[in-house]
């Protein structure tokens, strides 16, 4: 050390200690940041609100109800024969997010989907748009009678939540 002059620089053990100390501090700081980031993720009570049951019997053919599941709207649509035929007649290669109507339903007359536009999250309006399905007023996305994206900025079909029929007229979502 004694022979070290100001300006001239040689690598010394002290340099190693600086780098090592700095590296340990950086790793420590990075780990300490994690709780501050993760606190913003959905909390345990939010995650716990998971499933709901929906009674389908009051929904007549051609009508739709909207239920609230995890703070999101879920559309339950009682489709007409015409709706189903129209959805199944679409050639799959015409679709932006290719999916057959059969893949999107458990029973063809009941279409159950998350009513959130896959563009930026608005709730599309029923019985509107160019494809006899839904139309999102926010930026103009059109969905068909199977809830598949046909026109506009949205990239994906309306999502199908996990659901099952508990009996003929009741489903459990989630």
């Amino acid at each position, binding site marked *: 050390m004694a022979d070290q002059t100001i300006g001239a620089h040689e690598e010394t053990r002290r340099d190693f200690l600086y780098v090592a100390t700095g590296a340990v501090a950086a790793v420590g700081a990075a780990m300490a940041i994690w709780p501050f980031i993760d606190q913003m993720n959905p909390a345990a009570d939010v995650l716990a609100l998971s499933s709901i049951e929906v009674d389908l019997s009051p929904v007549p053919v051609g009508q739709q109800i909207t239920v609230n599941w995890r703070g999101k709207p879920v559309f339950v649509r009682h489709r007409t024969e015409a709706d189903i035929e129209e959805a199944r007649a679409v050639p799959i290669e015409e679709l932006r997010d290719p999916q057959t109507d059969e893949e999107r339903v458990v029973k063809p007359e009941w279409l159950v989907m998350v009513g959130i536009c896959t*563009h930026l*999250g608005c709730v599309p309006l029923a019985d509107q748009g160019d494809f006899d399905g839904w139309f999102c007023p*926010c930026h103009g996305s059109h969905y068909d009678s199977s809830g598949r994206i046909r026109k506009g900025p949205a990239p994906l079909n309306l999502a199908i939540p996990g659901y099952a029929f508990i009996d003929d007229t009741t489903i459990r979502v989630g």
Partner: protein
Amino acid sequence: MQALLNNGFIRWFDNRLPVLSWTNHHMMEYPAPRNLNYAWNFGSLAGLALVLQIVTGIVLAMHYTPHADMAFDSVERIMRDVNYGWLLRYMHANGASFFFIVVYLHIARGLYYGSYKAPREVLWWLGLVILLLMMATAFMGYVLPWGQMSFWGATVITNLFSAIPLIGEPIVQWLWGGFAVGNATLNRFFSLHFLLPFVIVGVVVLHLWALHHKKSNNPLGIDYKGPQDFIPFHPYYTIKDAFGAGVFLILFAIFLFYAPNYMGHPDNYIPADPLVTPAHIVPEWYFLPFYAILRAIPDKLGGVLAMGASIFILFLLPWLDTSRIRSATFRPVFKWFFWLLMIDLVVLGFCGANPPEGFWVPLSQVATVYYFLHFLILLPLIGWFERPRPLPDSIAKPVLKA
């Protein structure tokens, strides 16, 4: 100030903590170009608007409740029951609009007179950082009254992040603290809406530091040659800024007392409903041009990237503009394109305000293309091919000649 410093106690104090000499140095003797016009008033007006927002915001926070079930009613209570609550809230809501008006004019001034060019690039960047922070602050503030526009504005804007491949969805849920915009979102937005204005104050300090280090640009856009080019800030510009503040406050009062909801949206007086989107959602007017760019691109990720790029491109402006002449006064070609850009931004604003149907769609696409064309192609080319008009010898000469 000198008289004050003659006082023994004050001199003793100033010697230990030089607040007075500091103020004297930066706000009184501070040398400013002698030819500044009224376009240079918008900086001090932006400062005034920031102070107004902080003062009204802090008192609003004394009455506001950041909870999804109570926020809307607490704002209605501010409007109806709290003494002068209506005035304070209208000041805060209209104050945000006025803040953007003066900041946009302040930026336009910089674009016209080339204030972003060397040696003021860092000053320009700091201004853009302030703009981004203001946008975040105003967006989160608009969510707080928890009306329909608050809720759906928050939904659409946070969903912009879902366009990011792979990590988009987790990021959005992280922002929300749930599976949709909800109480957790409202709480964090309130916390950040309280914090960010003070961060803005910090960046403003850096902005002014950079300004005082390199001194103001001026309408001629030429460098200063000597003391004859300057006049002291006080009393010349203190009085000019005070006059500007008077005009600002008169216009502000007209909106406050005669049209307090003119710049707002009636749907925000309907409580938030997570199951129904209003038929026509629009952001506040100050976001409309950017919103139009977002919608002009018929692709989710593309739209988000274009919107982001429309602001980030301004960071590169000092290098995209290849001309070494600052002021548009001496740039006969640039001057026309400056006004075309302003018209383009107004057109984009109208596109953003109207539903994405009919001729608005192609119009917004043309205007978006032109916006990028201006910065990426026209500016570099104009700088090379334009023959500037001759510059005056000094700032003082044309003034003193008269």
